[in-house]
């Protein structure tokens, strides 16, 4: 049986928002879409007013079931997921800008001739292994094994360091010595911007993992108290996910 809150719920705001999105798209690129968006907006607003007139959404008393939809999610976890959603937008926008520039450029250097595929693949496997180490760290502390937590966190930290050493210590100097500098054109500037931003995120993740190690040695985590390990893990896996797209985009395609 549907609750009062469910009875009073409506898909109209989502439909209205979609109408606005289509309208804006039409405004930017294709006039018929603008008309379609406008029709959806008008129809949604009309239906909202009609439902409102029927007092579908009103009630004498406040509906007690209504509450913040993510209320059951712990605040720290909700915070990290909102942060990750904003990070998806940052990296997603840059990747799309890269694709846009590349498709519109007349010529582009062949990826496999410019970049070292073997080093790229090695770095990919290193990051995947560091992600495995982070999830094993979480599994360890959940079972109360602090010794395994220390080993797993140290492994994740060392693997992150190995990634940065390969990237900044070998790949970049090699590319720069060949004249592939940030000022040498769009292929280079997009490469350094995206991989540089990613490397910065790896370094930030290492600082967070370093803090977790410090807290672990102070006895800060137990099988019931380990939110920090979980949340830093979420961030670390996200950094891994971003690289899953950067590797093929720059080294293979």
């Amino acid at each position, binding site marked *: 049986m549907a609750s009062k809150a469910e009875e009073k719920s409506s898909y109209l705001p989502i439909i209205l928002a979609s109408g606005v999105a289509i309208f804006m*798209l039409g405004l930017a690129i294709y006039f018929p879409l603008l008309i379609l968006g406008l029709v959806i907006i008008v129809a949604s607003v009309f239906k909202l007013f009609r439902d409102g007139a029927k007092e579908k959404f009103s009630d004498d008393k406040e509906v007690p079931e209504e509450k913040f939809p993510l209320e059951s999610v712990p605040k720290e976890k909700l915070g990290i997921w909102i942060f990750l959603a904003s990070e998806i937008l940052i990296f997603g926008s840059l990747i799309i800008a890269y694709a846009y520039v590349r498709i519109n450029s007349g010529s582009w250097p062949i990826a496999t001739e410019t970049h070292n595929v073997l080093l790229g693949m090695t770095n990919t496997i290193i990051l*995947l292994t560091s992600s495995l180490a982070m999830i094993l760290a979480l599994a360890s502390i959940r079972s109360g094994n602090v010794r395994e937590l220390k080993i797993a966190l140290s492994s994740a930290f060392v693997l992150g360091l190995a990634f940065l050493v390969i990237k900044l210590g070998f790949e970049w100097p090699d590319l720069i010595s060949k004249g592939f500098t940030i000022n040498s054109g769009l292929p280079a500037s997009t490469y350094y911007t995206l991989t540089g931003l990613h490397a910065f995120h790896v370094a930030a993740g290492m600082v967070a993992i370093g803090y977790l190690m410090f807290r672990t040695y102070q006895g800060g985590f137990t099988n019931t108290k380990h939110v920090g390990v979980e949340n830093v893990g979420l961030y670390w896996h996200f950094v891994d996910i971003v690289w*899953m797209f950067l590797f093929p985009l720059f080294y293979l395609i």
Partner: protein
Amino acid sequence: MAGIKLYVGIWLGLVFATVMEVVVRSLPGSASLFVLIIMLIASAKAIAISLYYQNLRHEGIRLATLPIAAVVGIVFLAVSAALTMTMGM
């Protein structure tokens, strides 16, 4: 212990998929097809990490809405960029 075996299994799958990306790139054939296959493999790897390492498969749909909404926004941006290019604007 079962969980650890699963995580190691996922890691093996991800490493195998990475090697497959490189192998696919070295095969002769249509470049567009390779781009499609490689990006599909990359997307599958990203989804696997989200579901198993970030544990989204056990989180409620409401929490998953946050990253999904961001991805939808990026897809919308990509479609807009693609349409702009197609129409030469």
